[in-house]
């Protein structure tokens, strides 16, 4: 016969956990006895099988016990029945929990100050990640309205280097892929967002936004028309031949008064009569997350007619920058995987090479339906950073509440001691305290979700992209918030509960309070809070400095009070000669407007793409490409460009009226180009061959400026005279004596006096161009700054709480010492030191943390290093100041301890 160890040990352990304590001994005894009897009969294997059946049955029994009302209170009370004290232990689990929660609620209500503090802290801690999760959820999981199965969509972009891309496609490319891709169930394209003036029933109305789309655009997206139909394949073949349009629900209601017979009506856009064939469903906005969608959709083939491009060949044109205009989306064929489609498109791309333009280029296939690769990458890195930041905030809040609970568990020593003495088991106390923190977690979670609800729209408005959808938390986010709340509550409650369960009964009853002994756990938690907030504050300082350095960096040109109006003369149907006469007339009109200080035109606007040429470097020049060529950025500008744009000349003269069409070709080069072409020499008067073998004479040297992106290496630039190098795409730049956007209406009006049908491409101020460029740095700075401030407040509160608590606990000791003549100042210093010591540890740890984390922030910073000593030093200073403030009040309180009072209360 087997001894005490008859049952397998794991089984015994398992059952001991499973069974209520009152039944543990006798049930295990019965099992042991019966098992031993079976083993003694010699059927050990059968006995084992039997054993597992027993365990299963016991589990069912235990479960039933938990679900049924308790046995004891209803049963006959007999003296021998009370073989353990009444603690509620033998009640069922479900009832235990309810009781724990009810009791917890009462205890918390008794100290509302504590409960409210904890709930606020938890609410802030949980609200931060919930808000960010709401954003992330909407950004990456929002489905474009009315688009069927967006996860089956793939986008095709032009790529200029392996893995890099995001460019639009050209017509022939699109046609080629559409024809050959078998893994796709259709490839659609859109492009050319046109602002057209429209006429209804012969009455001149307002302007509308029209988008040119391929005939299968709606089919590929899976959209069903609200009225009428969408486009037919034959309506996209011949440029200008099929003036048909689909209008948006909004336009139909607004401009067409919801006319039920809208199909077949005519709307005239830019003078062309379009027949309305259908109405798109309400809310449909294509794949964009950033715009409300156009008012009308027209076939791609109508683009030329709508923009009055006289050049009939534009439809087939290949090697031209402007012809790269199509955004392309495909839908995976049934059964086709993304990878298969990607491989097929890549193979197709490799077979498609145009000698002049496509060399070295390929395509980038992306499953991100809404964002371009660069948008997706920047949103992803921003989301990651924000998630990391809010997790830190959450950790700080958790530690903060843990400290609050720990302190409370200590002051509740007497209560807990009494309950232990009355027979409450440790497990029971542990559960009780955990139930309390769960209650706090639930309330904090509710506050957090409410905060997220209130603030996620505001947070979204800080993002660098103008999202259309509203940002309310949805079910997915709510579930995560609940999980976070429970986890936080358990994490915050576990240390205090464990500690309380270890309460020393005798000590607790005797002293009522534990002695001034410090808790390592509590100190550790405070240090952790300080450390984590240092990381955030350092991050916020870094981002603020980065944003500042982006905003204040010298661009080399002016941005204030400059209005930019883009006019595409070729799209408007101007011949070169017509264009050449239009520009001076337009400049003259604009110059005559009140409040205009200067006007010019420029082919290129900073941060908006590039136009360049490769020169064979003349003798003595320094090449700047791997192929030994000299890469030169180009621009064609009108008279006054340098003055209007605020670009300084370091040598020579600017381009002016003397550089007209028939005059000798002149060029202004920037310092970098001058240095590369004629190292160590004066560039003025030198000649250089550019473009169609014309020889340009350098008339001036301009100061380097920023041309393509913030913080770029100094790069080459050559400015030619617009009159000598005519460009049909021009930007009018107007220097105004007030906010530039106030001049939009007068400027457009002035130009329309020359040509009433003039359409403008891009109208904006240089200031907003620059703001768009720096927005990403601003977002990081603002959001991390907000969360950093939150972290700082929480950490300060934590420190204040702990130091105050220490003072409160040591009141008696301090009183005695004062009674014995201790110096008040010394007492205060001691208290202050205890707070600063904790803060010091935290700062040290935080510095180490910030150092470790620095590489994650590098990609989000501009102009400063992630380990920037100034930012770190500033963060340390801020924390030191906050820690001092947080410890000062308790220190002062310590000096006010009245010895008599302190000794009497004990």
């Amino acid at each position, binding site marked *: 016969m087997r*001894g*005490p*160890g*008859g*049952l397998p040990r794991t089984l015994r352990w398992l059952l001991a956990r499973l069974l209520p304590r009152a*039944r543990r*001994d*006798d*049930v*295990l*005894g*019965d*099992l*042991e*006895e*019966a098992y*031993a*009897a079976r083993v003694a009969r010699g059927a050990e294997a059968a006995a084992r099988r039997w054993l597992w*059946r*027993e365990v*299963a*049955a*016991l*589990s*069912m*029994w235990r479960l*039933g*016990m938990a679900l049924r009302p308790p*046995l004891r209170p*209803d*049963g*006959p009370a*007999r003296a*021998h*029945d009370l*073989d353990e004290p009444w603690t509620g232990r033998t009640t069922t689990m479900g009832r235990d929990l309810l009781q724990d929660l009810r009791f917890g609620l009462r205890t918390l209500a008794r100290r509302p100050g504590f409960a409210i503090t904890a709930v606020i802290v938890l609410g802030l801690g949980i609200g931060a990640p919930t808000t960010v999760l709401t954003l992330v959820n909407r950004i990456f999981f929002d489905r474009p309205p009315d688009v069927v199965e967006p996860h089956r969509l793939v986008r095709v972009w032009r790529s200029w280097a392996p893995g890099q891309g995001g460019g639009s496609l050209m017509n022939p490319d699109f046609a080629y892929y559409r024809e050959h891709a078998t893994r796709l169930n259709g490839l659609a394209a859109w492009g050319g967002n046109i602002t057209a003036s429209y006429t209804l029933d012969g009455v001149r109305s307002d302007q509308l936004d029209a988008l040119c789309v391929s005939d299968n655009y709606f089919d590929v997206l899976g959209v069903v028309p609200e009225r009428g139909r969408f486009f037919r394949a034959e309506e996209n073949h011949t440029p200008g031949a099929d003036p048909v349009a689909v209008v948006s629900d909004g336009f139909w209601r607004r401009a067409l008064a919801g006319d039920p017979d809208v199909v077949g009506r005519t709307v005239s856009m830019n003078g062309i009569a379009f027949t309305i064939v259908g109405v798109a469903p309400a809310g449909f906005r294509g794949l964009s997350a950033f715009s409300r969608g156009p008012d009308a959709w027209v076939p791609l083939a109508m683009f030329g007619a709508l923009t009055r491009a006289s050049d009939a060949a534009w439809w087939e044109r290949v090697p031209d920058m402007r012809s790269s205009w199509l955004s392309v989306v495909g839908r995976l064929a049934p059964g086709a995987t993304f990878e298969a489609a990607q491989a097929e498109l890549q193979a197709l791309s490799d077979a498609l090479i145009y000698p002049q333009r496509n060399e070295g280029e390929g395509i980038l296939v992306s499953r991100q339906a809404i964002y371009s690769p660069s948008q997706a990458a920047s949103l992803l890195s921003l989301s990651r950073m924000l998630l990391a930041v809010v997790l830190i905030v959450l950790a700080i809040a958790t530690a903060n509440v843990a400290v609050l609970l720990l302190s409370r568990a200590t002051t509740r020593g007497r209560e807990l001691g009494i309950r232990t003495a009355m027979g409450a088991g440790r497990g029971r106390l542990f559960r009780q305290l955990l139930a309390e923190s769960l209650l706090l977690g639930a309330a904090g979670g509710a506050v957090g979700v409410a905060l997220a609800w209130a603030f996620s729209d505001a947070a979204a408005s800080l993002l660098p992209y103008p999202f259309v959808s509203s940002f309310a938390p949805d079910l997915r986010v709510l579930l995560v918030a609940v999980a976070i709340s429970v986890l936080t509550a358990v994490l915050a409650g576990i240390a205090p509960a464990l500690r309380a369960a270890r309460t020393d009964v005798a000590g607790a009853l005797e002293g009522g309070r534990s002695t001034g002994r410090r808790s390592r756990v509590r100190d550790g938690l405070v240090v952790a809070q300080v450390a984590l907030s240092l990381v955030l504050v350092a991050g916020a300082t870094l981002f603020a400095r980065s944003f500042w350095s982006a905003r204040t960096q010298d661009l080399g040109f002016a941005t204030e009070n400059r209005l930019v109006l883009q006019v595409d003369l070729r799209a408007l149907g101007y011949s070169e000669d017509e264009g050449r006469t239009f520009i001076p007339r337009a400049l003259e009109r604009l110059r005559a407007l009140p409040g205009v200080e200067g006007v010019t035109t420029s082919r290129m606007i900073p941060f908006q793409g590039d136009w360049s040429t490769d020169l064979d470097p003349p003798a003595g020049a320094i090449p700047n490409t791997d192929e030994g060529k000299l890469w030169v950025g180009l621009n064609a500008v009108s008279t006054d460009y340098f003055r209007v744009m605020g670009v300084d000349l370091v040598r020579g003269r600017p381009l002016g009226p003397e550089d007209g069409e028939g005059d000798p070709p002149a060029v202004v080069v920037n310092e970098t180009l001058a240095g590369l072409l004629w190292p160590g020499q004066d560039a003025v008067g030198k000649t250089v061959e550019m473009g169609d073998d014309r020889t340009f004479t350098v008339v001036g040297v301009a100061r380097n400026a920023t041309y393509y992106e913030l913080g770029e290496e100094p790069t080459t630039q050559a400015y030619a005279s617009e009159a000598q190098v005519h460009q049909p795409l021009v930007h009018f730049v107007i220097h105004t004596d007030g906010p530039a956007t106030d001049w939009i209406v007068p400027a457009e009006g002035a130009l329309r006096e020359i040509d009433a049908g003039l359409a403008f491409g891009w109208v904006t101020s240089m200031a907003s161009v620059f703001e768009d460029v720096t927005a990403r740095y601003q977002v990081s700075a603002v959001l991390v700054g907000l969360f950093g401030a939150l972290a700082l407040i929480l950490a300060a509160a934590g420190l204040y709480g702990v130091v105050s608590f220490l003072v409160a606990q040591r009141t008696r000791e301090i009183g005695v010492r004062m009674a014995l003549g201790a110096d008040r100042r010394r007492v205060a210093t001691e208290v202050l030191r205890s707070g600063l010591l904790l803060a010091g540890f935290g700062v040290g740890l935080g510095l180490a943390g910030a150092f470790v984390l620095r590489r994650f922030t590098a990609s989000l910073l501009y102009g400063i290093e992630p380990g920037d000593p100034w930012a770190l030093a500033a963060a340390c200073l801020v924390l030191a100041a906050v820690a001092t403030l947080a410890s000062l009040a308790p220190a002062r309180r310590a000096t006010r301890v009245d010895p008599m009072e302190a000794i009497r209360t004990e």
Partner: protein
Amino acid sequence: MKGERLGEFEELILLCVRKLGEEAHGAAIQEVLSERAGRDVTLGAIYAALDRAQRKGFADSWLGEPTAVRGGRAKRHYALTPGGLDALEESRRIRDLLWARPEGARS
């Protein structure tokens, strides 16, 4: 009596308790049920029935002293309450009543 009726299984268990007397505890009840009634019943089921009986006031239990045979673990002893005994007798009376046949009937 509270008007509670005995289930068939409950009745069997209570009969075992009565039969075993001083020795009525989980493992012993299981053994008796197996040997005398030919029913292999799990301890879990037995405990559940005993709990039910206790709730109805038919049985009572208390912890005994630890015994070496059981790995030093105590036994929970069960005994019938007067109410339990009444219930068993009532049950038996009804059965007898139903078993009895009218005079002259053949078996």
